[in-house]
C-alpha cells in the first residue's frame, strides 16, 4: 500500500497517472524538495520538463547560506582537514544539534598536522546564542568570548576590529585570551552554521581576510541541513544556479524572490504544489485550494493532498548519495534496511514516463 488519490488507496500506476495529469495541466507548478542527490537530480529534471519552480522544503533556512556563496565567498575548509590541522577551533554562534557529533569528534582528537599538538576551543557568543551542549562543553572546554548584550554580528565586528588592533568601545568577555590565542595559532578554524543575517557572515569572512594577510586561518561551514546542501549542489551543477530557481521561461532562472515557492503559493501564483520529503513525521503545510502531490515516508495519505505516494529513504530503504559535512563532499549511502518502498528517483522516472503521453501546459 504505497499510493492514494485523496484518501482512497490506489495502485501505484493509478496514482502516477493522476499525478502526471495534474502536472501536465498545471500552468505554474511549484516544487518543494527534500531528497538525496539522485532524488533531487530527477526532481529538477522533472521541473524542467513541466516548467516548474523549485526550492528546498526548508528553503527559507537556506537563503542566507546560499547568499554567503553567491554574494560573499570566503575561506572554507573540510572537517577532515580541520580535524587534522586546527590548533584552535572557534565556534561562532549556534551550531545545529545535527552537527554536534561532528564537533564531539573534533573535541575528541588533537591535530597531527603539521605536528602533534593541542587544540584550544573558543565559543563566540552574542545575546541570543545558546551555550554549547554539556557533553561538548565538557570535552572541548571552550572559553566563551563575546557579550550577552550584543547581537552576534556586533560581537564579530568588535572582534574583527580588535584583531586589527583598532579600538572598540565595547569590552567582550575573555577577549584578551581570544586575541592572544588566535595571534599565536598556526591554523585557527572558525566553525559556523546558518546565521540569520548577512552581516554576521560578511563580518566573519572579513575577519578571515584580515587574519590571512599575515597568518593562516579558515572556516568550517556546517550547513543547517546536509540534505538541503546536497540539493543546493545538485541544483547548481544541473542548472548553473542554486535554488530558488525556476523553468517558467523554459531556461533556468535564478531569482531568490521571484522563485520563492512559499511566496508563490501565498500570492496564489502557483496552481500546483509537488511536495517531497524523505523525513519521518514531516507533512506538508496544509493549504486549501491548492492541489498538492505529496511524496512522503508516511504510511497514510496526507490530509488534503490530491495524490500521496509513499517513498523510501536513501541510505535506509535503498542506496543513495548524500552530502556529508563530516567529509565535506558527497558520499555513497548504502541501504541499512532495504525495503520495497520506491525511491523518489523511481517515482519521478515513472512520472516522466507518464508525462510523455500528456500535453504539458506552458507557463
Amino acid at each position: 500500500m504505497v499510493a492514494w488519490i485523496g484518501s482512497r488507496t490506489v495502485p501505484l500506476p493509478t496514482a502516477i497517472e493522476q499525478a502526471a495529469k495534474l502536472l501536465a495541466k498545471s500552468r505554474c507548478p511549484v516544487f518543494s524538495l527534500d531528497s538525496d542527490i539522485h532524488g533531487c537530480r530527477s526532481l529538477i529534471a522533472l521541473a524542467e520538463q513541466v516548467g516548474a519552480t523549485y526550492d528546498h522544503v526548508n528553503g527559507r533556512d537556506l537563503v542566507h547560506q546560499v547568499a554567503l556563496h553567491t554574494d560573499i565567498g570566503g575561506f572554507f575548509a573540510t572537517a577532515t582537514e580541520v580535524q587534522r590541522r586546527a590548533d584552535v577551533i572557534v565556534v561562532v554562534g549556534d551550531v545545529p544539534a545535527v552537527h554536534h557529533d561532528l564537533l564531539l569528534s573534533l573535541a575528541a582528537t588533537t591535530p597531527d598536522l603539521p605536528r602533534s599538538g593541542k587544540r584550544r576551543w573558543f565559543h563566540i557568543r552574542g545575546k541570543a546564542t545558546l551555550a554549547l551542549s554539556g557533553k561538548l562543553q565538557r570535552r572541548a572546554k571552550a572559553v566563551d568570548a563575546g557579550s550577552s548584550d550584543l547581537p552576534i554580528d556586533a560581537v564579530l565586528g568588535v572582534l574583527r576590529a580588535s584583531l586589527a588592533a583598532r579600538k572598540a568601545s565595547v569590552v567582550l568577555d575573555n577577549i584578551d585570551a581570544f586575541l592572544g590565542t588566535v595571534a599565536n595559532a598556526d591554523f585557527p578554524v572558525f566553525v559556523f552554521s546558518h546565521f540569520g543575517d548577512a552581516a554576521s557572515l560578511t563580518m566573519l569572512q572579513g575577519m578571515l581576510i584580515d587574519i590571512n594577510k599575515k597568518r593562516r586561518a579558515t572556516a568550517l561551514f556546517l550547513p543547517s541541513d546536509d540534505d538541503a546542501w546536497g540539493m543546493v549542489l545538485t541544483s547548481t551543477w544541473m542548472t548553473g544556479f542554486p535554488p530558488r530557481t525556476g523553468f517558467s521561461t523554459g531556461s533556468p532562472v535564478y531569482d531568490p524572490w521571484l522563485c520563492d515557492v512559499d511566496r508563490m503559493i501565498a500570492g496564489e501564483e502557483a496552481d500546483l504544489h509537488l511536495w517531497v520529503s524523505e523525513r519521518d513525521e514531516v507533512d506538508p503545510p496544509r493549504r486549501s485550494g491548492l492541489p498538492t502531490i505529496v511524496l512522503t515516508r508516511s504510511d497514510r495519505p496526507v490530509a488534503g493532498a490530491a495524490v500521496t505516494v509513499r517513498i523510501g529513504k536513501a541510505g535506509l530503504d535503498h542506496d543513495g548519495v548524500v552530502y556529508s559535512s563530516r567529509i565535506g563532499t558527497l558520499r555513497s549511502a548504502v541501504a541499512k534496511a532495504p525495503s520495497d518502498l520506491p525511491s523518489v528517483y523511481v517515482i519521478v522516472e515513472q512520472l516522466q514516463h507518464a508525462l510523455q503521453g500528456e500535453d504539458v501546459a506552458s507557463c
Partner: protein
Amino acid sequence: MLIRLAGGEVIDPVNGLAGKRDVWIKGGIIVEKPVSKRADKTYDLSGCFVMAGAIDIHSHIGGGNVNTARLLLPEQHAAHLKRPQHTPLSNAGWSTFRTGCLYAQMGFTTVVEPAMSPSNALHTHMELADIPIIDKATLTILGNDDFLLSMIRDNASSAMIDDYVAWTVSRSRALGVKVINAGASAAFKENIRTFSFDDVVPSYGVSSRRIVEVLQASVGRLGIPHPLHVHANNLGIAGNAATAAETIGASNGRPLHLAHLQFYGYGTEGRRGFSSEAARLAELVNGNPDVTIDVGQVMFGQTVTISADVIRQYSGMRTASPKKSVLFDGDGNGGGIVPYRYRQDYYGSLQWAVGLELFLLIDDPWRVFFTTDHPNGAPFTAYPELFELLMRRDARNAKMAELDQSALELTTLASISREYTLDEVAVMTRGAPAKLLGLDDRGHLGPGAIADIAVYRKGQDIQKMFRDAALVFKNGDLVVRDGVVTHYRWGRALRLNPPSDKGIVKRMQAYHEDRYGLSLDWFTFPDSAISRENPFAEVACRS
C-alpha cells in the same frame, strides 16, 4: 544500421587520409567500405570537411571547485554563451547540461576534467554523468596529500608509491595523474606564501622537484598512458619562465606534460617588468621531444579562475573581479575560485600574445594542445575565435591593432607568419590528444575507431565553421545538425584500473580510521552510485 557519409573532404592525419572519400559507420564504429552492401542512411557531405570528433585534454568542466565557481557567480553565465550572443533569452551557460551541448555543437566529443581531488571523486563523477552527449575523463590530483608526502619523506619504496598511486587512480576512476604546484598547498597551510621548484614543504622536508620526479616515475612504471600532467610552480608570476624551464629540464628524457604553459611564459623585461618569454619556452619544448604542453590561451572578457593551486589563487584574490572569491583548504590541494576579467590592457595583451606565440612557435602539432584551460584563460566557447587566430594571420593582425602596442612590442607575435592548416588542427585537436591519453579508439577515422565524427561546412568564416558543426556523430548517433543538438545521449567517463597490491587497501583503511576516525567506505563508492547505465569505460594501461 549502415551509415554512409558521402563525398566529404576527409582530414585524418593519423591514417594519412585526405581528400574526398566516403566514411562508413556500423554499430557505432567506423568500418571499411562494405562490399556489395547499400547504406541504410546516406548523408551527402559535399562541400564539407570531415574530421574525427575533437578531444579537449584540459577543461575544468566538473567537480567541487567548478561547482563552487558556479555557486559564487550566478551572474557569470553570460560569459559562457556562444559568441556573438545570438540567444539573448538563454541564461544557462555552464550547467552540466549546457556544457555537453556546447561542446558537441563545436564537434568536440571527449573532454578531460584535469583536476579531480581524489576525496571529491564521487561528486566529480556525478557531475560528469550529468554532462550529456560527450565522453569525459578525469585526472586525479596527487602531490599535496599527506599520505604521499609522508611516504616520500620516509623514503618509501617505489613499489609502495606505485601501489598508492594505482589505488588512487583506480578508486577515483581517473584516466591519469596530475600534480598541481607540488607541495605548495601543503606548505601554504603552514603559512608559506611563495613556493618554487626546489623549495621544501616544511614539515615533510621534501621539495617540489622531488614530488614531481617521484610521481613522474610512478606514472611511467604503472603504464599510465598519459604522462604526469604537471601544473608547475609560480603560475602567473613575472619571471616564471625560468620555473617552466627548470621543470622541462627535470623531465630527464621521460614523458612529461606541462599544463597551460602560457601562464608560465613571462619574463621581467620592459617598463612594467612583465614580458614574453614564449619564444624561449617554445625553443625548449622543440628541443625536448618527451615534453608535451597545452597552452591555456587567454581571450578577452569576463571569466573565473578555478584552480587547486591554492597559494596562487590566494595571491590572485586581490585582483578578483567582481570582488568576491573562495579559498578552500581541503584534503590535499583544496582550491581557489577567483573571478577575473581579461582586459585589453598591457597585461591582458601580453598574456594573449604569449599564448599565440607558443601555439605558433612550437613546431610539432603533436606536442602542443589546444586549450584555454577553461575557464581560466577563457570559456571554451571562445574556441572558434581561437581557431581563426591560429589559422589566419590577418585575423591576428586585426586583433593586435586593438591591443596595447607596448606589450606586443615585447613579443615576437608580429613577426610570425605561420597559419595552422586544417591538417595541423586535426592533429592538435584529434590525433595528438588521443595519442597522449592512450585512447586508440578515437581521434581518427580509420576502421575500428568509434564513430565520433565532426563535419564542418567549408567557408571563409572560420569562426562560424567551428562554432556550428554541420553534423556531429557520437558513437555513430547523429547528435548535432547545423550547430543544434538534435539528440541527447549519455556518454561515459573513461578510466584506468591499474592493479595494486591488496595490502594497500588495508593500509588505506588503517590510515583513514586512525587519522579521521572513519572507515574507508566514507571515501569510496561503487559504480552504481552514479545511477547511470555503464557510467565508466575502462582504458588499458600499457604493459
